[in-house]
């Protein structure tokens, strides 16, 4: 009888694991968006020049849910990227939930960011911007094992005087 209960518990756990995993990932994605909502800004100088932005963050993880380093792609605006590359903004964030497993040394998460004018969302993009979105520290890396998340879109407005 005891063995039967154990077996039933095991079957239930296996059957519900994917659903739990999926709901955890959804919660992790929502939490990530909240962090971006709070900290992700676009350059006022570029907004005033009506230049949209395409860039990305590469988050290097380590074992034990640690953020080892955050690197911004080369075309990220320098005046606002300081806040986004500070690992402190992700403190308490559960990367395991996003990955669906424990973090390991060398795990990479790439987070694209798109900044567009809410009034003229299609203007100012060029092929070079798309290409440079994923160039980090001057190197074009064609193959890299990573988790690529959905782009975060900043819809900026202004300036108004």
């Amino acid at each position, binding site marked *: 009888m005891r063995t039967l209960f154990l077996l039933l518990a095991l079957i239930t756990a296996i059957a519900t694991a994917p659903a739990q995993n999926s709901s955890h990932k959804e919660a992790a994605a929502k939490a990530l968006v909240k962090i971006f*909502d*709070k*900290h*992700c*800004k*676009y*350059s*006022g100088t570029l*907004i*005033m020049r009506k230049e949209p932005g395409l860039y990305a963050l590469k988050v290097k993880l380590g074992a034990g849910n640690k953020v080892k380093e955050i690197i911004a792609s080369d075309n990220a605006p320098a005046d*606002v990227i*300081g*806040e986004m590359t*500070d690992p*402190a*903004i992700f403190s308490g964030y559960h990367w395991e939930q996003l990955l669906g497993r424990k973090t390991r040394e060398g795990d990479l998460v790439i987070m694209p960011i798109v900044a567009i004018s*809410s*009034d003229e969302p299609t203007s100012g993009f060029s092929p070079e911007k798309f290409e440079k979105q994923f160039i980090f520290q001057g190197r074009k890396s064609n193959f890299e094992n990573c988790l690529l998340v959905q782009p975060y879109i*900043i*819809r*900026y*407005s*202004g*300036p*108004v*005087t």
Partner: protein
Amino acid sequence: MKRIPISWLLFACCLALLSACKKADRTGAVDRPEFDITGIRTAYAQIDHYALRQKLNDSLFIAWRPQWDQAFAAADFKSYKNLVYIPLKGQVVGGAQLFSDNLQTNVRRFLAAQRSGNGYDLKVCEIYSGQDPRSQVRLDRSQNSVMLVQGLDGHCYGNFRYLQGEPQTSSTHTEACLYYHECTWVAICNGVQNVVYTRGEGHPSMVQDCGIPNQMGCGWNTWFQGYGGWQVYCNPDEIDPLPPVYTTENWSGTGGAGGPSNDLTIGGGGNYGLDTVLVDKSVADPCLAWATQVVLNRPVLNQISAMFNQIFGGKGEYTVVFTQEAMGSIDAAKTLAEGNYFIKTRLNSDVLTHSSKELIVATLVHEMLHGIFLIKKKLSNDAPEWKVALNHEMMANNYVTNMADFLQSIFFGLNYNDALALSWEGLEDTDAWTKFKTEHPNDANLMQIRADQFERNHSGGTRCP
């Protein structure tokens, strides 16, 4: 003599009645005088509106606003030089944000406009009962500025709620308080703010009892200048006088909460959560620092600050930051939505330093409205009416008088025309301004001259040391 049947008599009576009614209609249509409301409004724009205000206490006063759409000609229109009445509606402004607009008075005020040369003479008249001014008004020309109404013999006080048509000295008022943590109920009895309650959010109800006005103390010829009603002010929980003057030296900003950039060391505080409204440490000019503190920290509450508070106060969902930057000599400030939940207002030190405090506060109020509009744009999923190109049109059409009220609630000595002129600053690109300038070029020119006096190269207004 042949008898006429009764049915014939009845028929003849009906015909006579119909004919009389038609005649009366025609007479009314012919006799109804027409008046030049645009000319009267132009005359009104030129007078000192501040004189029409009644001070309630150190921080509150009643602004009497003309209800132009309810203007009517006096019964003795011709004999009194085309006399026209425009009802004035009292609204408590300043001090704290006005949440309800239900001032009930037993004084009915009217703007009386009489043709004089090419323009109009304007005076204020008062009626102390619910009687129709068209039949009761007699003008006392002995008064220079106030045209009192006579002929209401015996009634030294009117109805407490004249709209009800019967005296009522006790009333209950319920106010929804949905967005604010605390509200203050102010009962005004007979011109005196005599009851103040502070309660939490929800739908609380308050009762006031003003008592019966003292009829004995009010002789036959003395008008009882009473009014009563409810005003409800929300967040903060007290109505206080002008704030202390902050400078960067004596101002103890609590700082922090600016995120890891560690660049926002001076907290906005006041009505707003520290993570919501921030004044950057770059705002170092004493006058700019003073103005941001006065506008953000004190309970200067009116329609604009109510909206600002509703969006940026408490919830912590959006953040607005004020910075000081040198941006050349063209724009006084620039506001941008630099993130989905982040507004930055850059105050231009090249324009604002050494300007008057009035101009700086006017600029801040203007930029606060931009901040509100940018958030409304986001909340509406970029609805066309919130396009940034339409921000100034929206301000010019809907908020100029509110901006002027905001300024006067901080600078009590500021002339209303100056407050209006400052409120129009930066709105010269609007259709409303173009229309005003085309129709009243001299007035528009005067308004610009008034506003110029507050700028850095002039000496008008209050200057920082």
